[in-house]
């Protein structure tokens, strides 16, 4: 039996214990309240960030196809390939040679190159250097098996062009940041790229997403695939013909377009020199990325006479048989503006002869006739020519073809200082006016098809995931650019040019016999970059024509820049134009007209 004092002591101890526990409980409760209620948002966010990760789900870039006769063939696909990289901080100085040798043995590259890359990065204190890219999965597996410290591989989606250099400038390429550059890849980049998806998911300790109801997933939208109007067989042929001719005449560059005059569909668009979009980074001369047909403007020379004559015929100011006395030169202000090949004066020259013999004075005569006073250049006449060039035939503005770097060219307005008489006299035969090949082809197409100016285009159809093609309708820019009568007259005049004028080589050595072809040459001086005149001895030659003249199936333009041989477009472009026509007649199965 305990005594009374012991009982009191026990009760006090118990009371202290209970009080201590109560205080502890209160402190614990307050602390828990602080953490779980007051700081709820903060700790919840930390917990979520710890267990939840956000991922980008890449969208598949749309593919590009071209026509292959009646079928279609891919020209831009996607492929998952590998990037080989090194972290020099994990590779000791002694081991670098061995690592480089082992990598070289696996990839077939030079060991010295790898070693140089690793040592340069190490010297710069870098922890990441790309040693090679676009490595196949087989090769990546081989490298992985080497188990080299400081060497890694990552997968990346690459754009692949299975046709190599075919239509390189038309297509462009996709850079390391997955952005389309040049050509259609840049022009349609937003639609080709699609929209990447997002995944916010709870993950395990290894970062692997766990399927829970809380996960938020936004599916990616794959890019749109397209079928282009290009026919790969025609494209390959014109590229080959162009390359041969540029090399044969020692020219700097060249371009060819083949277009369907009934719709403006581009069947081939070639530029030379060219590049391989699979290895675009190895190209040092970036000018080869430019599409000669759309991204480069030039003075067309006599090719422009066709459109000056079209204005005269359409306005009823001249007919093919209208004659004028050719003085050889016109004295305008303080200058003499003359025919190209000597003065060649002579009486009673017809308008057909003006185009056949490419007489500068003849189209200056037409320009004068366009105004109210046939004996001088008037503002009304110049304004009319300006309207035909720009509003009727579309020069001076972009055609809207699906090329990222298309330029507009330049046509001087009649009403300002640049529209003086000398400039307009020159413009009437294609000097002092800048155009692109695609503008020329579209305008010539309007003459070929009876007066419809179609927008030249490269996209033929949108392709759905199941392979169904939805055609994209061609766009008619302007109807009746000239009257039916003027069109027929011009057609006949251009046939004479092709058969008896500067286009005679189309029929050289029995070629293209029985076919009616219409067209016009153009040889122009090349202006100096600083605008102080023209480069001595340099010219750009072109031939733009269509066939068969009575029912045209194709319009072709050939342009050769700065040939290293003597002669005009007659020598540099007409032979290759003739060869292309000859091939196209067989390819399309077009029988001779006679």
């Amino acid at each position, binding site marked *: 039996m305990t005594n009374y004092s012991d009982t009191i002591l026990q009760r006090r101890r118990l009371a202290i214990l209970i009080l201590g526990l109560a205080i502890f409980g209160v402190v614990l409760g307050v602390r828990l309240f602080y953490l779980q209620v007051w700081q709820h948002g903060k700790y919840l966010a930390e917990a979520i960030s710890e267990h939840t990760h956000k991922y980008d789900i890449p969208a598949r870039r749309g593919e590009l196809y071209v026509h292959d006769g009646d079928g279609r*063939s*891919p020209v831009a*696909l*996607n*492929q*998952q390939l590998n990037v080989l990289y090194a972290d020099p901080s994990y590779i000791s100085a002694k081991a670098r040679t061995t690592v480089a040798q082992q990598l070289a043995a696996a990839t077939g590259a030079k060991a010295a190159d790898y070693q140089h890359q690793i040592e340069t990065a190490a010297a710069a204190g870098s922890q990441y250097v790309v040693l090679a890219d676009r490595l*196949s*999965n087989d090769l990546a597996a081989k490298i992985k098996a080497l188990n080299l410290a400081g060497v890694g591989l990552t997968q990346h989606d690459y754009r*692949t062009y*299975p*046709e*190599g250099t*075919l239509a390189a400038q038309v297509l462009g390429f996709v850079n390391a940041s997955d952005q389309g550059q040049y050509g259609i890849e840049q022009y349609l980049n937003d639609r080709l790229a699609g929209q990447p998806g997002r995944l916010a998911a709870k993950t*395990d300790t290894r970062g*692997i*997403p*766990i*399927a829970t109801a809380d996960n938020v997933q936004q599916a990616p939208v794959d890019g749109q695939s397209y079928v282009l109007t290009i026919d*790969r*067989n025609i494209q*390959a042929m014109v590229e080959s013909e162009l390359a041969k001719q540029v090399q044969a005449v020692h020219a700097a560059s060249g371009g060819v377009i083949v277009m369907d005059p009934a719709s403006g569909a581009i069947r081939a668009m070639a530029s030379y020199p060219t590049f391989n979009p699979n290895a675009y980074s190895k190209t040092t001369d970036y000018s080869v990325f430019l599409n000669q047909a759309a991204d480069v403007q030039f003075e067309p020379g006599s090719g422009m006479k066709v459109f000056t004559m079209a204005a005269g015929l359409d306005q009823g100011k001249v007919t093919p048989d209208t004659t004028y006395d050719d003085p050889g030169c016109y004295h305008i202000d303080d200058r003499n503006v003359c025919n190209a090949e000597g003065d060649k004066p002579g009486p009673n020259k017809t308008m057909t002869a003006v185009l056949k013999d490419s007489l500068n004075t003849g189209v200056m005569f037409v320009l004068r006739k366009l105004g109210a006073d046939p004996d001088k250049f008037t503002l009304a006449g110049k304004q009319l020519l300006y309207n035909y060039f720009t509003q009727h035939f579309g020069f001076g503005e972009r055609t809207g073809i699906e090329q990222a770097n298309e330029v507009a060219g330049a046509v001087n307005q009649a009403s300002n200082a640049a529209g003086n008489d000398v400039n307009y006299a020159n413009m009437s035969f294609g000097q002092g006016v800048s155009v692109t090949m695609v503008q020329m082809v579209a305008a010539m197409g309007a003459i070929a098809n009876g007066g419809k100016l179609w927008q030249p285009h490269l996209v033929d159809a949108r392709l759905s995931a199941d392979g169904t093609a939805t055609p994209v309708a061609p766009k008619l820019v302007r109807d009746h650019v000239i009257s039916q009568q003027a069109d027929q007259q011009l057609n006949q005049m251009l046939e004479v040019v092709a058969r008896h004028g500067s286009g005679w080589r189309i029929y050289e050595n029995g070629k293209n016999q029985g076919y009616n072809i219409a067209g016009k040459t153009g040889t122009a001086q090349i202006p100096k970059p600083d605008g102080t005149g023209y480069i001595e001895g340099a010219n750009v030659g072109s031939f733009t024509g269509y066939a068969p003249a009575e029912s045209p199936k194709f319009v072709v333009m050939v342009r050769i820049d700065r040939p290293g041989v003597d002669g005009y477009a007659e020598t540099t472009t007409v032979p290759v134009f003739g060869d292309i026509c000859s091939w196209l007649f*067989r390819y399309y*199965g077009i*029988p*001779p007209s006679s």
Partner: protein
Amino acid sequence: MSTAVMTARRNQNLYRQPTKLQLGPTSATFVVIALIVVLALLYLNQITKTGLFTYKVSSLAAQRAQVLAQKQDLSVEAARLQSIQSTQATAAAHHMVPTDQVSYVR
């Protein structure tokens, strides 16, 4: 109903002493704990299964991605082999002749 069955029923003791199921506090606690444990095990089993399915889904997704990548590789390879350059390099192409003379039947 047959006579034999009727006989058997007549001989049965029709009065049954009702059994009273009574659990003491210890047994009741034990049963509750056992039930909780069983339910917890069932829950853990389901959670584990879900987790395993997640890994299976991840693994299948990875396999799918790999197969798609292989398909892409094969598509690219097929396109390369059928490209103009490859076709022109074949032996058959070297033996082809240009069609210079074409006759059309009207």
